[in-house]
């Protein structure tokens, strides 16, 4: 674990000591090396539980895919930000990359944490660099509103978690993830236990986000610059899923009765946010709402607490992280050329940028869960396990799949097919950097078709 953490921390001095000519190339090379070394975590013997174990940080089959995703995403974020940061003064560029790196460090510590308070502190710590990135480098005036919604929704959800964790520490004496699966079941018979149960889960449900508390997500995703959108969509939402999967082990047996409202909100959210996607005018907003839709499925999969539910949730989290981040990068290629996020403004792109249309096509298909991609595997496992839980959920999940297919196709057809609009006629061609970015998103997704066992966690 230190093998990855120390180089990431050393990235900070390298940012500030590199000359301005070598900054982006050296940071990219360094973070790519870290990403490739982090792949070695996937080869660790994961059947026995925790690996790379010390008192503070460890990896296990649940956190390893998320850690690898986090490490993989840093070079991608740096590639994506290179263009729009090129015009800023060198020190501001350094601050930006330092914020991305510090976010990376907090995320590695969060996913690797073995103790719940450390996880909580890192969970909160990731808010600060993200807030700075959104409010300082976002492009519209709405970014301030977006930052406030993002910060206060997540904080309001997570303060009860702090209280709940301290209560747990008081009553059981230990908050280590290593022992939660072996500790005796808690005595949860009072009314206050129900509030404690809700306090434990609320932070993660707001982060995921659950349908009722999802308002921060479209704002934050739309107003953030590309690296902010990528890290938000790909990893920060998964912090919520990961936290839920960790803490739900100790919340039995209350979960069987109390989870119904949240399962229903999650499933109804899949349908509702999918329908909202169909009438969006803003491209990034569409991708943001599709994130809420997929995360609703993940939340439902985790809350029913079955092996397939957990496995499907984890696979969908990883696959959706890569797909959503790639779609935001594609939307950013549009934005950098036309400086507008309106979907109707830049149509018929297939005629003008045909190779980029290939990436649009592939990632649209990934978004609508085309077999044999891992998106389908995750969704199918969640849908099957929900069907087993109660046959009637098929109404909602089936409708959700249909609506997902229709808005993904709508996005593809509006931006790529059809008549060419005038703003598109004089845009610059695609850079190699953008193609590299797309391939680096696609390659893990395609390779995971061959061995999904890497990302399916400990439940299966």
């Amino acid at each position, binding site marked *: 674990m230190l093998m990855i953490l120390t180089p990431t921390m050393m990235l900070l001095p390298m940012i500030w000591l590199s000359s301005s000519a070598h900054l982006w190339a050296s940071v990219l090379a360094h973070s790519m090396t870290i990403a490739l070394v982090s792949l070695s975590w996937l080869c660790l013997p994961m059947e026995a539980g925790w690996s790379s174990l010390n008192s503070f940080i460890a990896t296990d089959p649940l956190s390893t895919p998320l850690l690898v995703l986090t490490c993989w995403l840093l070079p991608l974020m740096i590639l994506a930000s290179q263009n729009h940061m090129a015009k800023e003064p060198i020190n501001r560029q350094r601050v930006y990359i330092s914020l991305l790196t510090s976010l990376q460090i907090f995320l590695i510590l969060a996913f690797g944490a073995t103790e719940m308070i450390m996880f909580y502190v890192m969970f909160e710590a990731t808010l600060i660099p993200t807030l700075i990135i959104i409010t300082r480098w976002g492009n519209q005036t709405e970014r301030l509103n977006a930052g406030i919604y993002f910060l206060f929704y997540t904080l309001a959800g997570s303060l009860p978690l702090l209280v709940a964790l301290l209560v747990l520490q008081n009553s059981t004496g230990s908050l280590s993830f290593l022992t939660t699966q072996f500790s005796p079941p808690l005595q949860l018979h009072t009314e206050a236990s129900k509030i404690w149960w809700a306090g434990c889960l609320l932070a993660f449900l707001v982060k995921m986000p659950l349908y009722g508390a999802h308002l921060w997500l479209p704002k934050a995703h739309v107003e953030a610059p590309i690296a902010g959108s990528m890290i938000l969509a790909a990893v920060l939402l998964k912090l919520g899923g990961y936290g839920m999967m960790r803490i739900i082990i100790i919340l039995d047996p209350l979960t069987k009765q109390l989870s*119904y409202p949240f399962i229903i909100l999650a499933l109804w959210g899949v349908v509702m946010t999918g329908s909202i996607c169909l009438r969006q*005018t803003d491209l990034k907003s569409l991708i943001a709402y599709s994130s809420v839709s997929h995360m609703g499925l993940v939340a439902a999969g985790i809350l029913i607490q079955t*092996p397939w539910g957990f496995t499907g949730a984890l696979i969908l989290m990883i696959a959706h992280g890569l797909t959503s981040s790639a779609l935001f990068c594609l939307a950013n290629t549009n934005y950098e050329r036309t400086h507008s996020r309106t979907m109707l403004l830049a149509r018929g792109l297939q005629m003008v940028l045909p190779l980029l249309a290939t990436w649009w096509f592939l990632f649209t298909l990934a978004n609508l869960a085309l077999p044999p991609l891992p998106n389908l595997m995750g969704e199918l496992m969640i849908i099957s396990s929900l069907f087993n839980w109660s046959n009637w959920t098929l109404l909602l999940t089936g409708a959700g799949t249909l609506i997902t297919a229709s808005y993904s196709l709508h996005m593809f057809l509006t931006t790529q097919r059809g008549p060419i609009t005038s703003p598109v006629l004089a845009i610059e061609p695609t850079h190699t950097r953008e193609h590299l970015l797309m391939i680096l998103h696609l390659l893990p997704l395609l390779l995971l078709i061959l061995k999904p066992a890497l990302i399916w966690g400990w439940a299966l």
Partner: protein
Amino acid sequence: MADYKAAPLASLPKTLDPNEYFNLSPEHRRAEEARAAVRANLKRQYQVQLNNPHRKELVDDPALTRWVYARANPYPHFRATKKTSLMGAMFGVFPLFFFYYVFKTDRDRKEEQIKAGTLVRKFNLTS
């Protein structure tokens, strides 16, 4: 009054041609001329922007900006009428209770069958 002439980028509209409409009042004609002048000015501004060889960004369409803003910010204009309240109840409140009832009854029935041992699992995969 007749000094509004046709220009290369703004043709003389039929309503201003004195040969076509000789029975219109002078006030009407003055108003039409003023409107035609405003339109021609807007067209000229658009053509200047469109044909500017140093232009790198899009020509700004204020109507599009207003439309996008209106689509993205409906909340300040929301009013609770009978129709909107019915929509909110039908899509936001009722389904939650409906599905709670459906799932709870189905799950309770299934749990009873599991506890009694009568549940027939036709397709025995892991769940």
